[in-house]
């Protein structure tokens, strides 16, 4: 019997430490998992990478009843095999971290397929709660799913939700709370292997049962071995006594087709589960998706539709984004530079220079691209969310085949027109590692806004009325080289390897503002973070190189470097000043203009362009523009290539490729142009 005082103290202690819970959120791609995750965690989420991998790790906190639950968003996968790092990450999480509840999201609009992942998850020890999403989309197609019946069949709570409209989320949280408090007994009805293989499975289980290491469940491991799972096989075989191992090898060798029996068994289970729960009078009805797809995936019309949509995206980005960018450049950044100069007036001039030219000049200029990116990302995010992007990939697949790639590479490459950084980041959607690498290597050949900005600025001075023609020509050159390099790389380096093209095409559905916002937010923030760190560091370095040792660019280290490279530059008709400008564009493409401005000191704005035209023959101007267009990727792009490929080698390869391309093109263009009479 405790004294009242003790009881009161203990109570107080318990209230101070609110119980916590670990919850996993799993689901196939396209079921609306991220929408739910965003709803549950709001902005309380943290995005990083799974340790040692380039797979995005998202987790956040949400309130479940009285608990602070840590919600981890698992990578969207169709199954839990060992064939991709995403699947391995997902299943390792469930097995090792042992979440208190696992929310499995399925889509009522594609129930059979999305239940496949559930058929795998249900065999793992974590208690399952199924969130049945998109009941509205299903209803539109005439498909009605009865969650209670499904729940009774599977033996696991099933909560209908419409994540896109935040419907059913409260109920879902309540059910998860009940499971956490042990008020609901979860008694799953497990799938079995197809009948003709049951004995084999029992035998495998018997052979390994006593040797399976914690925390892997033995029956699950037996099934994985039969599936031919490389990771589990590698883990368990060495732990078996030689006799068991030999028997196991023989058994597995005789039943190499067991995976089919397992998959069939799962789909049989799924079939039974949904037979009672799904009412589908809509069979044979032409859905809205079908009607739109008649045009959107039409072999010829589809391409036109795509071109039209992308043209629209471009137009929106430029007409809305460019003015904002201009404003930022001329007002905001200029104001910041002035203010900083004033504030730092008492300090030595190099400090002021460091901040105004180095920091603000570099970082500031890059940041002015943020409005353009936000618009671009929003358009893309919208197209992605309604489900159109899979159609775009389908339509472009034929063309991408030339480069040994699939339609799925087209989208990240198109993002490159805005900025190469999100293009490289966007290659995450590509499943095959070699296809992803190839796409990353050719992405810098997509002319980004910054490069086009430099061209747009300088071309008129040299070519007057023909400036637009020249600009388009340069863009075309870049794209032609992109295809050529893609073809060469895929034949030589990737040896014509082609991954399988299998892509689920979800039904079109109403976009969700919150999801799109989160997408845009994360992409923009990561770019800004890059600007904040990498570019800041480089800004200072470039500024230092261009001012030291005497405080003026003409005699700086940078200039010395330019002089050093002058002989090479001369092949392309570039003198040391243009070479220096090129070097500074490594940081950010638009720096080329700023540097030239300094080198031609006193020549500002359009005065600079004219000043250059007076000094250089058109052939040099053309060569300079060509080289700038194809020059090595900017610092931010290289840094992202490094993180996405997880190695320092690939950014180097990219640099070498672009360097080679740009110098060769520069030389060819210069001599060709001179021969055509544009020389000095």
């Amino acid at each position, binding site marked *: 019997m405790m004294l009242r005082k003790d009881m009161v103290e203990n109570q107080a202690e318990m209230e101070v430490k609110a119980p916590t819970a670990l919850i996993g959120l799993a689901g196939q791609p396209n079921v609306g998992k991220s929408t739910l995750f965003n709803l549950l965690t709001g902005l309380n989420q943290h995005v990083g990478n799974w340790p040692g991998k380039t797979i995005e790790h998202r987790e956040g906190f949400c309130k479940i009843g009285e608990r602070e639950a840590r919600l981890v968003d698992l990578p969207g996968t*169709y199954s839990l095999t060992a*064939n991709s790092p995403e699947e391995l990450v997902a299943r390792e999480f469930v097995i090792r971290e042992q979440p208190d509840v696992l929310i499995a999201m399925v889509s009522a609009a594609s129930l059979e397929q999305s239940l*496949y992942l559930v058929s795998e998850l249900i065999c793992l020890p974590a208690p399952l709660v199924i969130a049945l999403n998109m009941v509205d989309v299903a209803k539109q197609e005439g498909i009605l799913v009865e969650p209670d019946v499904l729940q009774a069949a599977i033996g696991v709570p099933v909560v209908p939700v419409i994540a896109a409209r935040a419907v059913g989320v409260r109920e879902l949280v309540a059910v998860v709370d009940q499971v956490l408090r042990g008020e609901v007994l979860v008694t799953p009805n497990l799938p079995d292997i197809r009948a003709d293989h049951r004995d084999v499975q029992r035998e495998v289980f018997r052979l390994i049962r006593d040797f399976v290491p914690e925390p892997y469940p033995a029956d699950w491991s037996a099934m994985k071995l039969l599936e031919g799972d490389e990771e589990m096989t590698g883990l368990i075989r060495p732990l078996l006594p030689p006799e068991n191992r030999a028997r196991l090898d023989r058994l597995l060798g005789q039943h190499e087709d067991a995976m089919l029996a397992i*998959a069939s068994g799962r*789909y049989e289970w799924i079939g039974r589960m949904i037979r009672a729960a799904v009412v589908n009078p809509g069979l044979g009805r032409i859905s809205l998706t079908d009607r739109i*797809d008649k045009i959107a995936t039409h072999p010829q019309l589809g391409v036109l539709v795509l071109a039209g949509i992308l043209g629209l995206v471009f137009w929106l980005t430029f007409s809305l984004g460019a003015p904002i960018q201009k404003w930022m450049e001329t007002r905001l950044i200029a104001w910041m530079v002035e203010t900083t100069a004033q504030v730092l007036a008492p300090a030595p001039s190099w400090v002021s220079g460091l901040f105004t030219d180095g920091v603000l000049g570099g970082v500031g200029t890059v940041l002015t691209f943020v409005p353009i990116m936000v618009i671009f990302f929003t358009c893309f995010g919208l197209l992605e969310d309604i489900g159109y992007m899979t159609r775009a990939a389908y339509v472009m697949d034929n063309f991408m085949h030339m480069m040994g790639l699939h339609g799925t590479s087209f989208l990240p490459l198109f993002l490159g027109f805005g900025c190469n950084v999100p293009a490289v980041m966007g290659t995450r959607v590509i499943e095959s590692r070699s296809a992803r690498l190839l796409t990353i290597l050719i992405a810098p050949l997509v002319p980004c806004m910054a490069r086009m900005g430099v061209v747009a600025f300088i071309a008129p001075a040299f070519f007057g009325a023909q400036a637009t023609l020249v600009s388009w020509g340069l863009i075309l050159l870049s794209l032609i080289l992109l295809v050529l390099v893609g073809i060469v790389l895929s034949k030589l380096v990737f040896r014509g390897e082609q991954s*399988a*093209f299998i892509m*689920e095409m979800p039904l079109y559905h109403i976009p969700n503002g919150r999801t799109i916002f989160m997408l845009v937010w994360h992409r923009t923030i990561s770019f800004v973070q890059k600007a904040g760190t990498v570019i800041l560091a480089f800004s200072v370095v470039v500024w230092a190189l261009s001012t030291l040792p005497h405080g003026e660019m003409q005699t700086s280290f940078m200039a010395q470097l330019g002089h050093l490279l002058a002989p090479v530059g001369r092949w392309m008709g570039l003198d040391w000043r243009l070479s220096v400008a090129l070097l500074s564009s490594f940081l950010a493409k638009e720096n080329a203009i700023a540097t030239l401005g300094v080198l031609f000191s006193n020549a500002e704005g359009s005065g600079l362009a004219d000043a250059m035209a007076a000094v250089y023959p058109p052939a040099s101007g053309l060569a300079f523009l060509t080289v700038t267009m194809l020059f090595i990727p900017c610092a931010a792009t290289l840094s992202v290539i490094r993180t996405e490929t997880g190695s320092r080698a690939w950014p180097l390869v990219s640099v070498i490729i672009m360097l080679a391309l740009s110098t060769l093109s520069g030389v060819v263009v210069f001599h060709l142009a001179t021969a055509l009479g544009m020389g000095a």
Partner: protein
Amino acid sequence: MFRFPQRHPKHERQPGGETLLSDLQEGEEGRVVRVQGGHRLENRMAVLGFTPGAQLSVIQNPGFGPLIVSLRGTRIALGRQESKKVVITRGTA
């Protein structure tokens, strides 16, 4: 029911009235027999529902490039190479 084989160049005759998915016309239905071309592809497609006995119908098949099938209530786009590896029998029974 006997059907005259469709006129397609490089058409592989499969034993026993079987044909390849790539040879199905738009609107036609079929039943999966097996997926050829290695375990990797076979397993990957099994996960998405291409198991022996699975019923599918062709939504779009332009004769070149990828095609779109409806399988287990979901639309799936498949590359031409991949569709040539799916052996099916025509019809629903």
